[in-house]
Structure formats: C-alpha cells, structure tokens
C-alpha cells in the first residue's frame, strides 16, 4: 500500500511531460487471476474460465469444461440402438430434434436403411424448427448479457412459437424424442401447414423487430465489432465449424457440401461473414434463421404423400393388433425387445449440420443389438477449444460477448 502511494506521488514529478501510461510503467502490478464461472450471471452455460488479468487486459485464460459430464457414450453402450434416442435430446437441449435426426441417420447408415421421402421432408422441417429456436436463444441470451434486455424478450417469444411447432409435430417442446430408427414418431397433424406458416410469420416479425433494435444499436456494435477476432485459417485448423467458421468467410456447411435428407432438393443460401468477429457471428445467425424459414416453406409446399416409417423388420415396431394375432409380427416384437435390431458389424460416421456446427456420430458395431461404441462429435466442444486464444489480448468486458457468440451448450460440450 505504501509502495503504491509513494510511486503515485513520485512518478509524475520524475517524468515531466511524458504521457500518463509511461508514468505508471514502474508500478508494481501483479497479474490478477479471477474465476469466471462456473455459474456466472453473464454466461449461459456452465463453464469456468480462469482469467489472468493485467489491468483489464486478458493475458492468459484457461477454459475448463466438464461440469455437465453425464457419460453419454458409456450409457449408449449399454442400451439398444433405439433406446439411446432420448439421450440425444439432452445433448444440445435447445435444438433437440437436430440431435435426434443426427443419431438416427448414423444408425440408419449402419443398417443401410433408406427412409421414405415424406419422412425426410418432415425430419428436415423439424431440424430447421430446432435451428431457428437455437439461434434465437443464442442471439437473445448474448444480447441480454450485453444489457439489451428487450430483444431477448422478443426473441424468446419467437422461440416459444417454434416450440409450439415442435409441440405440434411430436407432443413435446424441449426433450422431443422425435425420430425413430427408420422413421419418425408420428406423421404431421392435420392443418399443420397453415399453423406453421402463421407461427413462422409471427416469428419473422419478431426477428425483424429484434434486428432493428440490435443491428444498428451503437452500444451493441461497439461491443461486438472487432472483438473475439480469430483468423479464418486458424478457425479451420482448430476444428471450428458452424456459424463461427462461416462468419470467418469459409462457406463450410454440411447441408451443402455433403447433403443428407433432402437438402439437395431445396434452395437455400449459406451466409458467410468476412471479419470473423462477434458481430459477423451475430449477422450469420440472423441470416440463417431467415434461410431456415425459407427451407420450411419450401418443404411444406413440396411435402409428398406416403408412409413415414420404413418397413424393415430389423427396426420397425409391428402394429399392436398384428402382434396379438399373427406369428411373424409377434416374433418381430420379441426380437426387438430382447435383442434389439441386429445391424451388420462395422463402423460408420455420419455428420449433420447442427445449430453450432458439424454434429457427427461415430458408431462401432460388433453385430449385436447394442453399439460397441457410440461417439458423439460435438460441435460445441471443438468450438470452445480455441476460445482461450480469442480471449487473450482482449479486454475483460469482451469475454462476455465472445463467449456468448460461441453459444456453448453444456450438455453437448460435456456430454
């Protein structure tokens, strides 16, 4: 204390005419370590960041994840393939249908099952509904952490409307358990098209309102423009995918480069940024929401008729009436309950574009009804790994928007 006082008094006299920063150069300041998290009001997600500060400048950071580790992969090895679908809801709990679809596509690739076209269209509609909900939450929560409270209310109302649609197609809002191996839980309800169009129109109005409140807002722009910058090539080398990679100008989108479902039959644009900063990440997400709406509209127009479940005895559950009256269906039911569906031995990797990036499932099968290994390649996990380098060199106040725009989802990152 006395040291500090003395230096403060002495320094200005000794260094006449020099600027103020130089005058404080000989101050004996220690880097300060602060614990940011694991439960911090300005972060959405349970994560701890140990920050070393020099003044307000971040000189070192250590991102520590794992607070929500529940052993997803170990659990998947003990259940039949169809029993693991509810666990995938809990990976990215703000866009559960995307996870359901990703897991089921990987298992179907292992079984070599082609789902009917109507199923593919409905799965695509569900995926894009989930993506809109996820992006709205990401933008709204990040804006709220920057003290813009009103847009969050608008965007969360839009998310509620999307949850209404999710409710309509599978009866659940958050933990959907929507897909089945070789199909989906139920066909679309009557009048879904008009219902969806009405909800989407309301949502897009709310998004426009939030857009006007945020995009030209000087405080929001000051805090997001130029912060959290990371060069595009480094993003690739660090394994970053999703909106964050596209905000760096690299148009890598799994829906476009290796189309699954029916993404090759509908029109959509892949928005890219150019500055690779937080503001571009925000803009890319905003545009992706609009593109998702466009995709849903096209799917609703093109929706073909037909069955929604594949008729393959290895995976489909026979109708209950037939189970009680026919022997073949009874046997199928027994085999599914006692052994699960038997895939061929082998290993597959299938990737879908989740809200945060490439969500891949790598399944190793030994030919029994349970997976020998079921690995989830989580986009949040890879996206978080270079966060340290985005924070170092910035201000303490930049930690919040950078972390917010990473949109780390604990359930997916920690599995």
């Amino acid at each position, binding site marked *: 204390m006395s040291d500090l006082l003395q230096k403060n008094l002495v320094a200005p006299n000794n260094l006449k005419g020099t600027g103020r920063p130089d005058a404080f150069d000989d101050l004996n300041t220690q880097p300060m370590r602060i614990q940011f998290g694991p439960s911090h009001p300005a972060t959405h997600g349970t994560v701890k960041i140990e920050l070393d500060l020099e003044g307000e400048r971040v000189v070192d950071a250590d991102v520590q994840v*794992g607070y929500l580790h529940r052993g997803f992969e170990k659990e998947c090895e003990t259940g039949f393939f169809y029993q693991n679908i509810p666990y995938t809801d809990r990976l990215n709990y703000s866009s559960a249908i995307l996870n359901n679809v990703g897991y089921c596509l990987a298992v179907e690739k292992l079984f070599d099952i082609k789902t009917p076209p109507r199923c593919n269209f409905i799965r695509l509609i569900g995926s894009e509904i989930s993506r809109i909900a996820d992006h709205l939450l990401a933008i709204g929560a990040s804006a709220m952490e920057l003290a813009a409270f009103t847009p969050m209310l608008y965007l969360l109302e839009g998310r509620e409307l999307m949850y209404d649609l999710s409710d309509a197609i599978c009866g659940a809002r958050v933990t959907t358990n929507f897909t089945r191996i070789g199909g989906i839980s139920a066909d679309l309800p009557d009048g879904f098209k008009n219902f969806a169009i009405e909800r989407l129109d309301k949502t897009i109005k709310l998004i426009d309102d939030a857009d006007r409140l945020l995009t030209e807002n000087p405080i929001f722009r000051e805090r997001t423009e130029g912060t959290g910058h990371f060069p595009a090539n480094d993003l690739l080398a660090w394994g970053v995918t999703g909106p964050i990679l596209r905000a760096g100008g690299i148009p890598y989108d799994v829906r476009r480069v290796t189309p699954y479902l029916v993404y090759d039959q509908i029109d959509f644009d892949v928005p890219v940024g150019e500055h690779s900063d937080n503001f571009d990440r925000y803009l890319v997400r905003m545009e992706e929401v609009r593109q998702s709406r466009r995709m849903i509209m096209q799917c609703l127009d093109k929706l073909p008729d037909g069955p929604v479940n594949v008729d393959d005895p290895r995976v489909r559950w026979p109708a209950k009436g037939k189970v009680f009256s026919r022997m073949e269906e009874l046997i199928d039911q027994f085999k599914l309950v006692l052994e699960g569906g038997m895939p061929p031995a082998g290993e597959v990797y299938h990737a879908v574009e989740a809200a945060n990036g490439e969500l891949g499932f790598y399944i190793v099968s030994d030919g029994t009804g349970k997976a020998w290994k079921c690995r989830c390649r989580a986009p949040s*996990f890879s996206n978080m790994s270079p966060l340290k380098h985005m924070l170092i060199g910035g201000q303490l106040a930049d930690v919040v928007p950078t972390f917010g725009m990473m949109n780390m989802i604990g359930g997916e990152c920690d599995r």
Partner: protein
Amino acid sequence: MSADTPDNTNQAAEAGPALSPLLTKVTELLGAMVLEHHSFRSDDRIHVERENIVQAATILRDDPDLAFDLLLDVTAVDYYGQPDDFETKPMIWDRNTSSMRKLPLRRHQLVLPPKGPHPRFAVVYHLMSTKHLHRLRIKSRVPEDDPSIATLTTVWPGANWLERETWDLYGIRFNGHPDLRRIYLYEEFVGHPLRKDYDKRHEQPIEPYVGPAAKEPRRPQ
C-alpha cells in the same frame, strides 16, 4: 499399393476391385504406411502404424489433391477381448471350445480374455477436406501395456482438447502434447471410464474442492 508389401496387396485383392478414388490416391501417396484400407457404407478408412501417424497426417494435410485441413474428431475404441476390427474378422473368442468362433453372439455370452493377440485400443481420427469435400478415417492400434501415441497438435492445433478427452476417458497418452490434463473428470479420479473393463455402476467419492491457490500452478507461466 507398392510391390514390396505382398501382404497389403493380398488384402487389397480380398477387398475387391472397387477401390474408391480417394483410397486409391491415399494408398498411392502413403505407400507402405497404409497397413490396411477399407470402405464400408461409403466411409473410407485406413490403418496406420502409430509410429507413422504424424508423418502420415502431415502428408495428408499438405498434399494439394487431398488437403485435409479440418480435423473433426479424435477418439479411441477399446477392443477389449476382441481380436481385431469387427468388420475385417468377425470372430470371437469362445471359452468352451478354446477357439475363435464367428459372430453373432449375444453380449452376455462374451468371454473376455485379458489380452488379445492384437493391440487393445485403436485411436481414431476423422478428417475432412473443405476444399475437395471428402472424408477419411485413420485408425492406429495402440497396445494395452504402452497406451501412447504421438500427438497431432503440431499438425492440427484443434487436436488439443480432443486428445485431452481421449486421455481422460481412455487413458491413452499423447506424447508431446502441450497440456495433457483431464478435461471432463477431476484430477483425483481413478481410472478411465470409457474402457470396457470399467464398470458403469462403479462409484467414486467426490473430492472436496481445493481452491486454485492451494494447488500447484497448472500452467507454465
């Protein structure tokens, strides 16, 4: 396939003439480093000795026709008691006859000998090229008594956390890794839970939290 590796040539002949264009290119480029290659459901896969993994990865990244610039995933597979990959040799050890027998068996019928004739673990890398839009899987077998392999953080820095996760859950060491700490579990945790011999129901005491001041500095600073 180069001519001086007769075993590999035989394997390639067994796999059939339909070699995907990507695998053709990769096997040409890596030569004898590719121990085995395989295509299943349009997924291409190669096996590489663990001594060659850094060299192979560097070639795959730098070659302009392959240009694997994105390391998507690093993980491991525990083939505990299994002689080899399931798809190449779908055989299993039978205690009753003391011999190998064919799959399928039910899971509770598996009898696991302590050590298989082949290395127990396989480290698995998933690569993607954003330029040419192709994917490749590299596997490298790692024995149980020395579960270690060279790190790929020098080739793709994104391997950092993925390798830490593999160390945490499988106990495979990555030599030369800059920061090989556990990532999900706490430092006092005993064992590696994704190994097949780790019982799912096994519980461990939760260690009380020790503040950062009481611990040794974790980062060289």
